C-alpha cells in the first residue's frame, strides 16, 4: 500500500520567450508514451499529439511580425474552484478519466473508455485525441515500445498524462527508501527533452520547487472571479482561457504583452482590466 505523505499538485510553466518551436518535446512525448503514427499526419485534426506546439503571431506585417511557439500538453485542469471537477472528468460516463486528488493529474484509463468523446467536446484546449484507427507500426518497430504505457486501441480517447508512469516509478523508489520524492526524480519527458530549457516541471504545492517559485500560485480564490484559484502572482505568468475557471496546472510565461493577451479571447476593453490584475501580492504557501 502506497501511503501519500503529502498532497502534491504537479504542474509546469513554459517560458514562451525561450521556446524555439524545435519540436523536441513533441517527439520525446511520442517516444515516451508509445504514440503511434500514420502515413499521412498532415491533417492535424486526426493527428495524435499529446504535446502539440502551436504557432502564434502578433498579426503585424514584416518586419514587425513576431512569432511565438506555444507547447500545449493536457492542462490537467482542477476545475471550478480547483475542486477536481475538470471539464472532461465531469462529463465522462465511464469514469475513464479521473482527477487524482493526491497529484492533481487527470488520468485516462483506456480500457474503460468506450469512445463517446464527450470529454473531447468538454475540453477547451483540444488536448484530447480519439483513435479513429488501430495503431499500426511498421514490421519490427513494436520492438521499441515501452512497457510503462499501454498502447491504445481503436475507439478510445487518449491524452497527456504528465508521464504518470514516471511518477509511479519515482514514488516506488522513494517509498522503498522511505522518503519523499525529489523534484528532479519526477520530470515529464517533454521537460527533460527541451534543449532550450523552456519547460519547468514540479510540485506547485512545494515552495522549494522551481515551478512554485516562478509561478507563485495564489492559494486563494481570485476576488474578481471565485472560480479561479491558483492564479499566478508573477505578472509575466498566465494560463490559457484562465477566466473559464478550469484552473489548469500548465502555466505560460512571457515578457511580451501580446503573448500574454493571446492566452484568452478578450472583448474590447477587457484586457486592460485583466493585464494589471495578478494573484494577491501577499505570499501564502
Amino acid at each position, binding site marked *: 500500500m502506497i501511503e501519500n505523505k503529502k498532497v502534491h499538485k504537479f504542474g509546469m510553466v513554459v517560458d514562451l*520567450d*525561450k521556446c*524555439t*518551436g*524545435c*519540436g*523536441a518535446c*513533441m*517527439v*520525446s512525448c*511520442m*517516444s*515516451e508514451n*508509445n504514440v503511434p*503514427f*500514420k*502515413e*499521412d*499526419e*498532415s*491533417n*492535424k485534426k486526426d*493527428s495524435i*499529439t499529446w504535446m502539440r*506546439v502551436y*504557432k502564434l503571431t502578433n498579426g*503585424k*506585417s*514584416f*518586419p514587425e*511580425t*513576431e*512569432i511565438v*511557439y506555444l507547447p500545449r500538453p493536457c492542462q490537467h485542469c482542477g476545475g471550478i474552484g480547483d475542486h477536481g471537477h475538470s471539464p472532461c472528468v465531469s462529463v465522462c460516463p465511464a469514469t475513464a478519466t479521473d482527477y487524482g486528488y493526491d497529484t492533481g493529474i487527470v488520468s485516462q484509463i483506456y*480500457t474503460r473508455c468506450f469512445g463517446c468523446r464527450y470529454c473531447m467536446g468538454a475540453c477547451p484546449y483540444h488536448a484530447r485525441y480519439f483513435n479513429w484507427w*488501430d495503431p499500426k*507500426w*511498421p*514490421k*519490427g*518497430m*513494436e*520492438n*521499441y*515500445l*515501452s*512497457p510503462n504505457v*499501454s*498502447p*491504445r*486501441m481503436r475507439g478510445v480517447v487518449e491524452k497527456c498524462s504528465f508521464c504518470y508512469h514516471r511518477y509511479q*516509478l519515482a514514488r516506488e523508489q522513494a517509498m522503498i527508501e522511505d522518503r519523499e520524492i525529489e523534484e528532479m526524480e519526477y520530470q515529464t*519527458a517533454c521537460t*527533460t*527533452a*527541451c*534543449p*532550450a*530549457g*523552456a519547460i519547468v516541471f514540479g510540485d506547485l504545492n512545494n515552495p522549494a520547487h522551481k515551478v512554485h517559485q516562478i509561478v507563485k500560485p495564489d492559494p486563494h480564490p481570485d476576488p474578481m472571479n471565485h472560480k479561479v484559484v491558483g492564479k499566478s502572482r508573477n505578472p509575466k505568468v498566465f494560463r490559457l482561457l484562465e477566466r473559464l475557471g478550469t484552473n489548469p496546472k500548465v502555466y505560460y510565461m512571457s515578457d511580451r504583452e501580446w503573448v500574454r493577451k493571446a492566452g484568452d479571447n478578450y472583448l474590447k476593453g477587457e484586457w486592460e482590466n485583466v493585464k494589471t490584475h495578478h494573484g494577491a501580492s501577499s505570499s501564502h504557501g
Partner: protein
Amino acid sequence: MKIDRRSFLGLGLGAAAGIALSPVGVKLTDDSSIWTQNWPWTPVPEDGEITYDRSVCSLCPGACGISVRKINGRPVKIEGLDDHPINNGGACLHGISGLQYLYDPARIKTPLKKNGNKFEKISWDEAISLVAQKLGEIRESDTPESLGLITGADNGSMSRLFERFMGAFGSPNTYTMPSLESNLALTAAAIHSADRSLGFDLDHSDFILSFGAAIIEGWGSPVACIQANASRRERKAKLVQVDYRLSNTANAADKIIAVKPGTEADLALGLCAVLLAKTQISTNTLYGDVNKLAFAAMLEKEYTPDKVEAITGVKAADIEALAMEFIKAKAPVAVPGKGRGDVGQSLREFAAVQALNALAGRLNKEGGVFVMWPAGYLNFPENVMDAAAEQGAGKAKLAGSVNELVDKLEKDGGLSALFIYNANPCYALNNPEKVKAAMDKVGFKVSFSSFMDETALRSDVILPASIFLERLEDVVSGAGLAKTVVGLCRPMVKPVFDTKHPGDALILLAQAMGAGIAQSFSWESYEACLEEVTEKIWDTLSDDGYVVIDDKPPVGTPATDFTFLVSAPKVAVPMGEGDYTLVPVDKMRLAGGSMTSSPFAVKTVSDTVLSGKYSVVEINPTTAGVLKDGDIAVLKTAMGTAKVKIGFNEGILPGVIGMPRGLGHAFNNPYVAGKGVNVNDLIGPVIEPGSGLDAAFGIKASLSKA
C-alpha cells in the same frame, strides 16, 4: 400430457426462475465484457528491468551525448545525456526518434547485388568477393585512380579508414559532401592556413551577428546552439540576424536586418569597409596579414555604404550603425552559413564574414571565432604502398569538389568504380537528376548505406551498414563548435538485420584484395583498429564516453590572408528567369542533407509546411498576384516544375518564395517519402570559381495558378 393453462403457466414460471437463477446469463455477460475488452492485435510490450546506457548520436554532425533507456536490454527511449560537454542533457527531435531508424521500413537487411533492374540478396562472402574481384580488375588494368569515393563527413576514424583504403588502392579521388564543417574548413584554408577549422564561441559572445545562420534551426551542433541562444537573456547577449525572411532565428533575434537573398557577402564587406574607414583599425600587415592594404583599397572603392545599400537593400545609415555597434560590443562574433550552412553556400560569403571577424580582432578570443587545429587524436600506422598504389597516388584528382565531379562525370565520365559512404548525393545536391546521370556513367557503384535511399537505389552492390545504435565509433565534434570533443558511440543493440559495421566491411574487403591493401588493413576488426588508432585517449574515451580535447581559445592570433577576397570572386547570381527568387528554407523539424527525417519528425511538421502531398511555399501576400492562400500553383524554374501549395507569410521578403528543404524523398518508406517536393530538384548548381562550391542558394522562378 395435456398442456392446460395451469401447467403452461407452471412451466413458464419454472423456466423463468431457472433462467434467472442459472449462472449462464451472468457468465455470458461476464464473458462478453471480457472478450470485448481484449485487443489481441494491440501489442503488449514486454516488461523487465530498466537500465540506462550512454552513447553518442551521429545522425548529424552535432555529436550529442545520449542516454538510451532499455528494458531487459531492449532500447525503448533515447534522451539527451546529462552533463555532456556538448548538449548537457538536451536533445533534438531527430536524436530522440533514433530508435525509429533502427526498424525503418527502408533499411537494407542483407547485402544486395543489382541484377538488371532488381536487387538480389547475396551473402556477405559473395558481396565482399564480388567487390574485391571488380576492384582487382581495375588495379590490374593499371587505372587505380578511377576508383572514386564520396563520403559525408571527413573527420573521425571511419572517414580516415575510407581515405586509407583509397590511398592503399592508389586513388586520389576522394570527395566530401558539402557540409557546414567542410565549408568552414575551406574558409580557414582560404584565409588563414590549411588544415584548420573555425569554431564560434556563441556561449561567451555578447553580440552575435548571424548572416542568415539558422542558429536555432539546425545550424552547427543544433542542441548546443539552441542552448547558447536560450542563455542569451541571462547573459544580456544580443543577436542580430541578417535574413530575407522571418526565420525562427530571426524571430528570436533582437534585431533583423532584411537583405536580398544572396547579398550577405556584400553586407559583410560593407561592414568591413565601415570599420576600416571609421575606426582605428590599422591597414598595416599586422600579425603577418597578407594583402590587407589591397583589401582596404578594394573596400574603399567598391563597398562604400551607398554602394552596399544598392546591392543589399540595407540602408547606408543602418550599415554604418551596425558596424559601429559590432565593434563596440565586448565580445562580438560574426557567423556565416545561411540556413544550416551546408548546400548552396559560397566561399566568398564565408570569407567575407570571417574577414569581418578578423578586422574586429575577434580571432581566438573568448566569445569570438576560434581558428582551430584538427583534433589530432588519431594515429594511423603508415599505409603500405604497393606499386599500383604508388602509381595512382601520383595522379591528379579528377575534380576539386563533389559538384565539379558530378559535372565532369556527367559530361565525360572518368571513374570506373565509386564508393558511397554516409552520403545521399542523388537527393542532397542541387539538380539531383544530373547527379543521377553522372552516377549512371560510373560502371560499378558500391554503397555502404543503411537505408535504401535515392543513391543506394542506383548502386550495383550494397554492403549495408549497421546504424549508429548498432555500432562502435569515435564521433568527433566540429560543425562550428568552439570546442573539440571526441565521443564514443557504442552499440546499444545487436545489429537488427544482417548488416555489418562499415569499418569491418572495409577491412574484410581490403583483406580479400590482398597485396598492399591487405597489409594496410591488417586489423582483426574495426574495434581492434579503433582501439589502436585512438590509443592516446582510448582509456578515458571508453571509461567516460567522451574526451574533451580542447575548449579554450587557441593561443596566438593567426595571420589573415585577404588574397582570395581581393581577387574579387564572382558573385553567384540566381540563374534563370522569372518574377520571383526561389530559396530553400531549412527547418529544424525536417532533416537536411543526406539524412532523412524519421516518421516522428515528419509527424511534427506543421500543415503550413507540408499539406498532404504538397509542399507549402512561403510567399508574401503583397507579391502573390492573383494567387490566394491555400491555392495549388505551378512553380517553374530553369531546372524543373513542381505543383505546390501557396502559404501566405508576411514574414518573407516580397518577391521571394521560400520552400522547405528535406521533403520530396523518393524511396520505399511511406511515412517519410513521397511527400512534397525536393527543393534541390528545382535549383541548378552554380559552381563558384576558386572554391568549387555550389553557390546557388536561390534560383529565378515563376508561379502560376494550377
